[in-house]
């Protein structure tokens, strides 16, 4: 099922949808799976799926077309990127630095690792 224990399921649902939008799997103004489809697929209560989608509606990432379903909002991709860039430090950098410190790597070592990461691309 693929649910890690760190985050509430509704958050994981909204993040999965955001990932799909970022990767281009869901394009702007196209329909995303319905609450029912999502809940059946992940075997979760529809209320949970709805909570995840409501979160995206609040952030202006998806919108509701009456009688049809939920659609990707225009500019959603940019909005997600901006949000994630703002949270990048909290989501990744802090953990990275703390892990590096645990292993005894100093700033210079860490920067070398990061450069290696970009070179390897």
């Amino acid at each position, binding site marked *: 099922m693929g649910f890690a224990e760190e985050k509430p399921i509704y958050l994981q649902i909204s993040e999965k949808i955001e990932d799909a939008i970022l990767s281009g799997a869901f394009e702007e103004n196209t329909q995303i799976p319905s609450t029912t489809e999502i809940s059946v697929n*992940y075997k979760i209560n529809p209320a949970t799926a709805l909570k995840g989608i409501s979160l995206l509606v609040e952030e202006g990432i998806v919108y509701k077309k009456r009688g049809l379903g939920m659609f990707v909002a225009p500019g959603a991709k940019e909005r997600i990127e901006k949000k994630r860039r703002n949270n990048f430090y909290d989501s990744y950098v802090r953990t990275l630095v703390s892990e590096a410190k645990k292993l005894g790597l100093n700033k210079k070592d860490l920067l070398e690792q990061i450069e290696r990461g970009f070179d390897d691309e």
Partner: protein
Amino acid sequence: MSRIEISHLTKTFGKTKALTDVSLEFESGHIYGLLGRNGAGKTTLLNLITGRLFPDSGEITVDGEPVLENDRALSKIYCMTEGSKYPDRMRVVDALSWSAEFYPNFGGKYARSLCKKFDLNEFQKIGGLSTGYTSIFKLIIALACGSEFVLLDEPVLGLDANHRELFYRELIENFSSSQRCFILSTHLIEEAATLIDRIIIVKNGTILLNEDAQDILESGCTVSGPADLVDRYVQGKKLIGSDKLGGLKSAYLMEPCTHVPDGLTVGTLDLQKLFIQLTNA
């Protein structure tokens, strides 16, 4: 929007107090998880709701009407019990057509399509079904009966992993379109955890917990790490229980985890862990 109201229900069998002063409410549009250890009183509660047992005191009403000896109220409820209450020599297809006679909203076509999906031979006699297929037969009727309230007592008993997954999908699809009330009594807490939106924990015949699933799981957390760090962090906090492995410890708290020091990881509260901790003592 239908509602079952249970007030101050007590039931004793000889010297054993099966249920003591139980009060609950069940509404359409929710999937309830009725959790409890063996012998906690879950099956007794389900049997009382369907009028198969008589309470010693207390009352159960469906949309305001008492449920005892009341055909109209009883037709709003279907309970999938342990064991088969159908005649052994009856065939599956006949059981389905008789169910349609007694439950006016029974979906015959839906039931037959479920039989195909689960690979259940409609022409087989009920007495000849294996444990797993007896469960499948019962849950097909439960899903198709169209009643406002569907009570499922250990629905996946004997089902293989594929059929369990199929059942959960069908359950959610059915719930999503009908918004009827499902009450799921099960021991498989991990599997049920994502499906249910209200948790009821029964312990020794009383209600230990009756909460919205998301609320209760979000109001708690799991803190893991070196044992001494964890012990220091949980000082003065609402601790439900903990697990220890060598020098590592996981503590389960009934309050949000904030300002967690480095070296400790935070996770969501796991329903099964919560259940075990609450019902162990």
